[in-house]
């Protein structure tokens, strides 16, 4: 897999054209290119402006509630009998997931750019809720595109967005899930280029989005480093996070990429199993071009995008962020997968042992912690990112458990 030369650092990408190795890029319609270039310039300026970082820090503390705790999951550790397990508690953020870290950054950027109309795509609804929340806070118009199938399976989040004053548009095209929501958001952007800011929810899309969203999410890993130093006096031995597009994972991983002794595991959604319908682009896909970047995609012989499936709407996407595709090919991060059933089992175990209802997305990461932790010695420090809380999934989980009981 990693026949390529290893770089001195894994943390310097992308290059000026937005490439992580062969992945990334700017594969968009000409109409959008001026906007993409404008965004790139505005982000560069903001990144080098101390007042932007001061604003970020202030809202992170007082509005989002950062830092999120690094919590020693004692009963889970005892139960599994191996590695010492820590939870990075991103589910305690305002709006209940890591998504808000990125949205705060993009909305502050949109304000700097004078954009008054915000559009977003959402799968599970967590990014939509975070966007609706920040738009309410700053008095901005908010339109959220959501696949009609996801609108149905994530009703509580649709209601939350409505309460926050956002307009949720159910997308009826294609497979009516996250990828189609992204298509529709891009169609909106192409139509309303002048006044609209597209707030992408993950580390995908055309450059500069994968790098920008990653930068906004890196607070997860940066805090984890400090917190682990305080708790244990050293860095963790391994990191585990779930991956749809991959924003919570890259946020945790990126600050540790050059710490060669830290093992890093990304967990994709294996749905019904890798030989059946799933959403594991790295395990079951190959390189292609979609939604503005080259990355691993699920597709047929003709490059037609195929249906992804995961019990978790947030992981139900046929692609993955380009930086993950690169880290996969370089062999720096180990990408594995968990099935729907494994995630459901992990959800139940975590709820009962720790009194924490994880979202179905991080339940995939927990499923692999259950597998990995017993293989490790007791002094192995393992961090799993609890990227969101499970309240939004309760109806769906109830339905699944009932099917099994009957």
């Amino acid at each position, binding site marked *: 897999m990693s026949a390529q030369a290893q770089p001195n650092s894994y943390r310097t990408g992308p290059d000026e*054209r937005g490439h992580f190795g062969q992945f990334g*890029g*700017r*594969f*968009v*319609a*000409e*109409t*959008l*290119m*001026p*906007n993409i270039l404008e965004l790139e310039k505005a982000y560069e300026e903001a990144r080098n402006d101390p007042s932007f970082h001061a604003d970020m820090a202030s809202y992170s503390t007082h509005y989002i509630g950062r830092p999120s705790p690094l919590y020693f999951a004692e009963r889970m550790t005892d139960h599994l009998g191996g590695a010492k397990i820590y939870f990075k508690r991103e589910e305690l953020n305002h709006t209940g997931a890591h998504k808000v870290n990125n949205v705060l950054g993009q909305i502050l950027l949109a304000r700097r750019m004078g954009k008054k109309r915000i559009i977003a795509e959402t799968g599970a609804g967590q990014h939509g809720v975070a966007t609706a929340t920040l738009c309410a806070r700053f008095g901005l118009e908010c339109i959220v595109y959501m696949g009609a199938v996801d609108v149905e399976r994530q009703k509580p989040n649709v209601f939350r967005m409505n309460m926050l004053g956002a307009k949720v548009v159910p997308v009826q*095209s*294609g497979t009516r899930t996250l*990828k*189609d929501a992204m*298509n529709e958001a*891009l*169609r909106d952007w*192409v*139509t*309303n*280029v*002048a006044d609209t800011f597209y707030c992408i929810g993950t580390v995908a899309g055309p450059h500069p989005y994968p790098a920008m969203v990653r930068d906004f999410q890196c607070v997860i890993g940066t805090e984890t480093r400090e917190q682990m130093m305080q708790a244990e006096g050293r860095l963790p031995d391994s990191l585990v996070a779930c991956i749809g597009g991959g924003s919570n994972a890259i946020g945790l991983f990126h600050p540790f990429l050059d710490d060669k002794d830290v093992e890093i595991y990304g967990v994709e959604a294996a749905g019904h199993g890798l030989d059946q319908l799933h959403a594991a682009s790295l395990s079951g896909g190959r390189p*292609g*071009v*979609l*939604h*503005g970047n*080259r990355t691993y*995609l699920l*597709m047929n*012989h*003709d*490059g*037609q*995008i195929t249906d992804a499936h995961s019990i978790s709407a947030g992981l139900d996407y046929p692609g993955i962020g380009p930086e993950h595709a690169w880290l996969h090919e370089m062999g720096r991060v180990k990408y594995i997968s968990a099935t729907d059933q494994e995630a459901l089992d992990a959800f139940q175990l975590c709820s009962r042992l720790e009194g924490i209802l994880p979202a179905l997305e991080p339940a995939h990461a927990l499923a692999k912690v259950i597998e990995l932790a017993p293989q490790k010695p007791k002094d192995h420090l393992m961090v799993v990112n609890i990227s969101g809380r499970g309240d939004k999934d309760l109806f769906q989980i109830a339905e699944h458990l009932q099917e099994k009981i009957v």
Partner: protein
Amino acid sequence: MLKTQPMTQRIEARFQKCRQEGRAALVTYVMAGDPDPETSLEILRSLPGAGADIVEFGLPFTDPMADGPAIQAAGLRALKVGQDLAKTLDLIHRFRAEDADTPVILMGYFNPIYVYGVDRFLSDAKKAGVDGLIVVDLPPEEDDELCLPALKAGLAFIRLATPTTDDRRLPAVLENTAGFVYYVSITGITGAATPDFGKVATAVERIKRHTPLPVVVGFGVKSGAHAAAVAQGADGVVVGSALIDALKGTLDAEGRATAGTIEAVTGLVKELSEGVRSVAKRAAA
């Protein structure tokens, strides 16, 4: 400069002919494989006789991010009956066997071409008789991917210029463009709003100050009257969604072609052709 390549000859000859006739060219877009491969080939064959000067054949794609509902649905109809890139090239090969002069442009998105393999695609497309390519999601920033290899292989890479392409950006957009320039009349998706024709004329004049290539205009052109309005200033008029709507109106409940399908398309092409021909332009030397 890579501007004039052998394979753009058919395109150049066709614009030359239109100029001699003192009129703009009519460029038509239909989707390969919609509603089935044989019908789409029959439509393609009937277009020149109905008044089309250049034919664009759409490559179906599951996720056409710059297309409106009409072309989205057309692509899905084609995919449903198993259309793929290899079969599309085969249809063009069969078209070319009977028509040596009408330029054929393939229009679509990059992923099917990328997955087919760029070199293999260029070689097969050239063999099939393709003259040019329009690939929506390849801006000049990604010229290394397909544009430069295509020019090298002797296929025209036709660029889209849009209302957001300002004078500073225009030279980059035009640099490796060959055949003609496609001006997108609106900021938006195909088949959506009807443009302000006055603004379009101004934009075409602006582009023509930067390039000797013909400038054609598409997006939002639905009728003979629209075509005539665009033909005032532009060297060509592109119509797509309206033809697909006409086709769709004739399909049966299962989405299959009926006796009226081909005629519905050619009927509209005749109207559009009359619109284009109603505007006399100064014949070029």
